[in-house]
């Protein structure tokens, strides 16, 4: 496997979607190629730093406008029923 193929397969590799034989070839290339190893590690880190599963607090002004709009809609629907 050459550098171009490694770059093309980075996403599939990080997402665990490579066939075992292809994965093995890619990992073999990474052992011998420092540049590709750096790129793969940095792409992995890029995904990690953006992946933020912490709960998100809605700003209070936006929250109150949302719930107000929702209650208006519910009232409208209730009146139609």
């Amino acid at each position, binding site marked *: 496997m050459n550098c171009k193929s490694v770059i093309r397969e980075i*996403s599939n590799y990080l997402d665990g979607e490579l066939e075992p034989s292809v994965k093995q070839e890619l990992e073999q290339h990474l052992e011998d190629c420092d540049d590709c190893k*750096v790129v793969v590690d940095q*792409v992995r880190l890029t995904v990690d*730093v*953006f*992946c933020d599963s912490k709960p*998100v607090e809605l700003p209070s002004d936006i929250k109150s406008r*949302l719930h107000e709009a929702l209650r208006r809609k519910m009232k409208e629907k209730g009146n139609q029923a």
Partner: protein
Amino acid sequence: MGPPKPLSASNPHRLPSRVARDDEHLLVAAAKRGDADAFEELVTRYEGKIFRLTMNITRNREDAEDAMQEAFLKSYAHLKDFQEDSRFYTWLVRIAVNEALMRLRKRRPNQVSLDEPIEGAEDLMPREIEDWGPSPEQRFAQTEMHEILSEVIDKLEPDFRVVFVLRDMEELSTEETAKVLGISVPAVKSRLLRARLKLRQKLSRYFRQGRTN
């Protein structure tokens, strides 16, 4: 099969995650029967995530709020049409993404082109490869890190950003992302790879070793 295992140090999350999923289904069923409180509970549960999603797509607070509000109002109005063949949250995400994309297209009409053909792979090779040194998360304070990520994702072209947001930030599967955006699975994969490589390149400016902070 025996009774459910009690919570323990080695199995701390099993019960809460199961309850959350079962609960969503029950809340949707109650809301469909006209229980307004159940629908408000669903809104409260997802409002933060949906706002973050619309904000990440539109990169504009006013548009993000509009898109989020419209998504919840539409999901309420069309709740009876929700077939429950996916999670309620995924259905909600689909509505919110459409609302956000509509607003984004209005503001940047020539930049959102999800239906364009997939490009070749010739230009994918990284141009600069520099060591990032110690972990960026240790080098930057949380606020500074947040600003860097916000600036970097803001500069990513919208059609790549949308795919990255759905796959890597909202953690939708490739198939769900394709369905939400109405594009093929290979198109999602191609755009995701490009988005990840482009973001890596943009982050290098901040994370490379030797940069003084």
